[in-house]
């Protein structure tokens, strides 16, 4: 076993607009190594993978695979050069069979026509070789999530890569299935190849890895052997310090309840009360179900067993328009697709939720509308040219301010904020945090969903953690318990 690294990453940097996703990241992956990559959401792991797979072109830096320079323009090329990837939610062609998915692009033919029998046999033998229990003839749509990952794995391994990237593959796995996966990976590694493994399941990472690389805020913290590390130590390195002065000092909440959320049929016994002026943070990893939770409260998703009250009044079932007139506001996570209409003017976007208040005898009073919109845009510091310009003439940070200006016009009592500063530069972030603080001071109750821990801690009076659709409530906020939140979100017990 030589000492030469399998993969060398040198000074990798990538920015997306104002966000620096990766900054001067350098480390090495040894051959025959189970090498894990850990970090919080937004630490840069996905960007790193995308650079390796050629989905994204780095601004600076380069790669060396087995001593030779490596630079590709897409996953196909990456496969040809020896790097393959398996993802948490692999895309499969649902209407095709497992066999057809597996051998896509190279279906066995006989005199120019696809031979179904050959296809099935070849696919099945591939699957059996890996010891996986999967029938190649099944329609891909019908196989379980975990089998999809295994299918993706077989597909990736059949190209005989030198480096296999696994991005959160065990998210939907039972412990047994995870064992199967790790056995496969171990075989792969014993042949001299390496695995670059990304996971939030820290106990898994510590158990399986030879080496661990920790990223934080786009930068490389360290790369260390897994031996000798325990969970708490690992988390401490992942989380680090947060910028104290980015978050304003919050005023204490009042003692009057504003928002009450209960589950009615006793499933997970939810009972949350948010007082006037209180900001309750909801932390969790991506996919934990937080967006769905907010949407259910808002009435956009079937509320099922949730009962929501604002100032004691129960919200009508599944009517977002009534929820708004009862004082609810939602700032969605996906600004581009759910927050603003990109090909509508700024003024129309801003007034949409509050349009009713500008209607006079059936007609929209455009003068009043423009006046209110102008005031709101000014209050939220939106920099724009003309009100009639389209929304996408504005920067991300400004667009997010428009979203806040929009909802201010409905005079809400409760704000549901879903990742309010994602894709927003530091300057706009600070402004938004101050707006949130001011809203709270006016007596508004706020639910703040975020997967960026420092933000959740800095901007909340107390923090709830969500995992797999279930809220794990924690009534006390202790500033040095941020490690505890990551643990709760990852499912680490103890």
């Amino acid at each position, binding site marked *: 076993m030589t000492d030469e690294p399998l993969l060398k990453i040198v000074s990798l940097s990538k920015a997306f607009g104002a966000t620096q996703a990766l900054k001067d990241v350098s480390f090495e992956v040894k051959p025959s190594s189970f090498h894990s990559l850990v970090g919080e959401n937004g630490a840069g792991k996905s960007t790193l993978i995308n650079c390796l797979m050629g989905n994204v072109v780095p601004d600076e830096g380069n790669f060396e695979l087995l001593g030779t320079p490596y630079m590709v323009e897409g996953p196909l090329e990456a496969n040809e050069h020896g790097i393959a990837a398996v993802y948490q939610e692999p895309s499969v062609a649902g209407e095709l069979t497992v066999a057809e998915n597996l051998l896509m692009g190279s279906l066995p033919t006989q005199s120019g026509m696809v031979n179904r029998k050959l296809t099935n046999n070849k696919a099945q033998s591939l699957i059996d070789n890996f010891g996986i229990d999967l029938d190649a003839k099944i329609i891909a749509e019908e196989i379980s999530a975990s089998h999809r990952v295994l299918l993706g794995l077989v597909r990736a391994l059949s190209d005989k890569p030198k480096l296999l990237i696994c991005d959160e593959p065990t998210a939907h796995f039972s412990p047994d299935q995870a064992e199967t996966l790790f056995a496969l990976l171990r075989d792969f590694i014993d042949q001299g190849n390496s695995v670059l493994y990304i996971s939030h399941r820290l106990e898994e990472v510590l158990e399986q890895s030879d080496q661990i690389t920790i990223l934080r805020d786009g930068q490389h913290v360290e790369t260390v052997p897994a031996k000798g590390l325990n969970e708490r130590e690992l988390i401490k390195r992942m989380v680090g310090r947060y910028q104290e002065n980015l978050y304003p000092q919050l005023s204490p909440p009042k003692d009057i309840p504003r928002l009450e959320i209960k589950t009615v049929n006793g499933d997970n016994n939810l009972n949350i009360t948010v007082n006037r002026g209180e900001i309750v943070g909801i932390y969790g990893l991506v996919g934990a179900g937080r967006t769905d939770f907010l949407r259910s409260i*808002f009435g*956009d998703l079937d509320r099922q067993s949730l009962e929501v009250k604002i100032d004691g009044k129960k919200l009508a079932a599944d009517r*977002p*328009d009534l*929820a*708004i*007139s009862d004082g609810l506001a*939602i700032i*969605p996570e996906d600004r581009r*697709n*759910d*927050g*603003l*209409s*990109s*090909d*509508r003017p700024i003024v*129309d976007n801003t007034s*949409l*939720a509050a*349009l*009713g208040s500008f*209607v006079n005898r*059936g*007609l*929209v009073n455009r003068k009043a509308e423009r006046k209110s919109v102008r005031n709101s845009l000014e209050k939220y510091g939106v920099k724009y040219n003309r009100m*009639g310009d*389209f929304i*996408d*003439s504005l920067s991300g940070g400004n667009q997010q301010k428009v979203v806040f200006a*929009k909802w201010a016009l409905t005079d809400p009592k409760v704000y549901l904020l879903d990742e309010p500063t994602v894709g927003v530069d530091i300057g706009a972030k600070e402004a938004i945090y101050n707006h949130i603080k001011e809203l709270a001071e006016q007596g508004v109750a706020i639910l703040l969903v975020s997967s960026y821990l420092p933000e959740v801690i800095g901007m909340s009076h107390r923090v709830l953690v969500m995992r797999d659709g279930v809220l794990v409530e924690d009534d006390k906020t202790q500033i040095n318990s941020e490690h505890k939140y990551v643990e709760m979100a990852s499912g680490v017990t103890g």
Partner: protein
Amino acid sequence: MNDFVRYIRKNSAESALIAVIAALLLVMFIIPTSRETFYSAYNLQSIMRGAAVTGILALGSLMVIIVRGIDLSVGSMLGLASMSAAIIMSSDHLALPIWHALIAAIGLGVAVGLYHALLIVRIGINPFIATLGSMIIMRGLINVLADSQSVRNLPESYTEFGRGEFLGLPNIFVALLICWFVVDLVLRRTRLGRNMFAVGSNESVARLSGVRTGRVQTYAFVASAVLACIAGLLLTARMSSAVPSVGAGYELQAIAGAVIGGASLMGARGTALGAMLGAILMSLIINVGVQLDVNSFVMQIVTGALLTLAVIVDQIQRKRHHEQS
């Protein structure tokens, strides 16, 4: 001057149409042989009457297109309303006053519109398929109702209206102007209109902003059907008869008119004025073609080419707009 330039750029479709129409009118004036025939009172009125029917259809299509839908059934709807009203009006057996027939026709439009809304909004069927289906069904219904016969003995007062004038303009054209006024008012000045643009632009954003998107789409489809019925009633008045094939193929002219007038099949664009001008332009072109003795199939090619051009221009504008962001 700057304001003028800005106005032109903002209302580029309408401005272009006005320019083309003006150019056409100028050409017909300059060519001496066509000047007398084209600018005769009879011909001008003929143009206006033809434009009125297509124009009203185009206004209905506009609303549906704005919410990102499409209504292929308007030609058949026109025919069904036309035939139903004609049968009721001409029936000695029923002996009902005219306005009963009119109400029935409008009611039919509301029913068909609601039917479309049920399929498209509630069940989620693709509007293209749903309205294509009803287009075929209604055409069959027309033939069943009329027993494949034409209806000719319509009341005198009704056909008088079709030939009559109001302040120098054909009644039918005045009806178009009224429809234009109403549709324009709804689209530009009412909350419903604003919500239609919101839904067509981004249904998710509209929903999360409290817009009752299903209801808005329903209004659009009902409006399209009702306007088609109105057009049918006017056409019957003008023709003094209803034939089973009436309205066939009109849906394409209606959509073409709206799109040429600035509507985008991707929703959230278009104006009532543009749709009307688009329909007028097409009527004009056909008339000019007849005047200049151009083969009618060549005219068909021209109309199709115009529609294609309008869609291409829309696509280019959208692309450029997206790239700038």
